[in-house]
């Protein structure tokens, strides 16, 4: 899993056992106070039955609009939130059932980069302290005597300078801070990196730097990414496989080519068509653009059956009945829809 990690992963997924296997992940947040005796408290169904596999060395892109639950998936996988139900096997070990000691061990190999490069670094710690924090938590990972040198080599590997170790986060730009966050995540040499909107807060010209850095790290170390973003073009560039989320469920999943070139779920089609395009060669074909009506409904009160049906131009009676599920018989490109394209 080194050089050919960026190659098409459809073979990877089938042959090797997945490094991360998420089954029926559910996360409901209770709303309001817990004082409503007798009545069942209302919940926000942020994630409502999400399953996916992640093969070693591949990138799974998780896309969707705000409120679709993609960040909640990340937070539950990291156990920053406790899931309501479901399992997540990391190398065969259930993250959700792990006791504190086992969880600490899993976190050695499962790391994260956050969206906001300003908030995710403690402003009172200098860069060396930030990057060395993983080893303070896991002292067995690296002897104290080697830490200072390792901090500096990590800084160089993410495109900063050794001297930057003495500086504080506020002295860096957004892109540079995100590099520091990446260096911190790489300090433990994880096998899976969850990237929660890692470039969304950055300027366009700087986004590409971070995207390149992440891809280069993957090539070099064979790390698998769960890449969460709402920017479709960045996800497309990074990912081998894509999962499209809508209101807490995955509505379509497949290889990057399948999903982008041949979208089958109406929501995927609409999402792709709504993305402003830079290509003038297609003479701004606005007529073919699908503009959805309305907005994403509240996850506290989603429509029955297919959650997309109240915005879908193909909705039929059947859509209001049972919730459509991903069809496992269809191979790699699966879609949860009664009338797929």
């Amino acid at each position, binding site marked *: 899993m080194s050089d050919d990690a960026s190659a098409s992963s459809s073979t990877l997924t089938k042959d090797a056992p997945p490094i991360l296997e998420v089954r029926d992940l559910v996360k409901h947040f209770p709303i309001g106070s817990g004082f409503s005796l007798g009545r069942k408290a209302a919940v926000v169904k942020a994630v409502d039955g999400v399953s996916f596999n992640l093969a070693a060395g591949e990138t799974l892109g998780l896309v969707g609009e705000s409120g679709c639950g993609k960040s909640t998936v990340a937070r539950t996988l990291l156990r920053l939130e406790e899931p309501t139900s479901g399992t997540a096997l990391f190398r065969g070990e259930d993250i959700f059932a792990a006791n504190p000691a086992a969880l600490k061990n899993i976190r050695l190999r499962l790391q994260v980069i956050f969206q906001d490069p300003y908030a995710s670094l403690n402003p009172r710690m200098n860069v060396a302290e930030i990057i060395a924090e993983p080893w303070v938590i896991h002292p067995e990972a690296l002897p104290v005597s080697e830490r200072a040198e390792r901090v500096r080599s990590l800084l160089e590997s993410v495109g900063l300078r050794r001297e930057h170790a003495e500086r504080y986060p506020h002295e860096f730009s957004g*892109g540079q801070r995100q590099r520091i966050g990446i260096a911190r995540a790489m300090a433990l040499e994880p096998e899976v990196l969850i990237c929660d909107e890692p470039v969304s807060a950055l300027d*366009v010209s700087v986004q590409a730097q971070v995207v390149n850095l992440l891809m280069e790290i993957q090539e070099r170390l064979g790390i698998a990414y769960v890449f969460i973003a*709402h920017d479709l073009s960045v996800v497309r560039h990074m990912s081998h496989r894509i999962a499209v989320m809508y209101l807490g469920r995955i509505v379509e999943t497949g290889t990057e080519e399948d999903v982008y070139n041949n979208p089958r779920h109406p929501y995927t089609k609409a999402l792709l068509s709504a993305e*402003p395009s830079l290509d003038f060669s297609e003479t701004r074909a606005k007529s073919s653009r699908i503009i959805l009506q309305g*907005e994403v409904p509240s996850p506290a009160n989603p429509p029955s059956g297919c959650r997309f049906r109240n915005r879908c131009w193909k909705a039929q009676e059947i859509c209001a009945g049972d919730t459509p599920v991903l069809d496992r018989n269809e191979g790699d490109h699966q879609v949860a829809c009664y009338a797929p394209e």
Partner: protein
Amino acid sequence: MADHPILSVDNLQVEFRTGREIVHAVNGATFSVAPRETAAILGESGSGKSVTAAAIMRLLQSPPAFVTGGSVRFKGQDVLSMPMAEWRRFCGRDIAMVFQDALTSLNPVFSVGWQIAELFRAHGVARGKDARDRAIELLGRVGIPDPALRARDYTHQFSGGMRQRVMIAMAIALSPDLLTADEPTTALDVTVQAQIMELLEDLRRESDMAMILITHDLGVVADVADTVWVMYAGRVVEHGPVSAVLSRPAHAYTLALLNSVPRARDKGRKLEPIAGSPPDLARIPDGCAFHPRCRFATNLCRVEAPPSVAIAPGRAAECHHAGKVFDV
């Protein structure tokens, strides 16, 4: 486009004086907007695009902001030297603004219908029930379902996209000739962004309005704008018709920006990012402000600010190597 621009900004300079340093947010921005066109001001953070808009609308708090030079002419009148009372009469009636964050731009303690009706009352256009009816009609026009009912609601009862529609309704209430939209869809989801951009475009066409669209999103610019003004470090570095500029840029920055966006055909390849970070506006590099990040930079770029080079009618770029960039 028309000969007489509805708005022309000439060599505008704005600085922020903090106790610690002077931030040169706008350094001689020059641009103009023709009647009925959509002009996009494209820039990243630190480009001065939002400060420029705020200066045009005279929304800057002084101190710390000071307009230190240049002029803004709206329909031939000098905006910056106009008494504030006179300018307020322009605002809303002739020129209006839509902000990025509708939640903080609308008043939370009055119903949206009342807020719109109040606009009519304040400008003496309509009163009482008439004002209310017109408010409801306007809410319907921006695509809010059940406008008569929703007019009684407060801002927190609207979703993000609907809130943005309310703000657009307020902005177009008095049929201005120029609408300034500062990142109107940045806070919205892609599918809702498409709705709002379509609405703005429809309204602009129906009411012969001109629009300034301030954004960092190249895709949005390509989609809706007629002309584009690319800003970097407080200056307009390139301008011209959108399709011409974006398909064959003449400024090294525009070219680099376009190259850094991932496209379908780049799949699997490395992107070409722009090195470094956007400039620190308190310490703008000498010569061409872009030179430390530019792959075309020569010694000339380090010492001498580039002149404006005409590329085609209505098109120019401030780049020493405009010809070379254009031919890439």
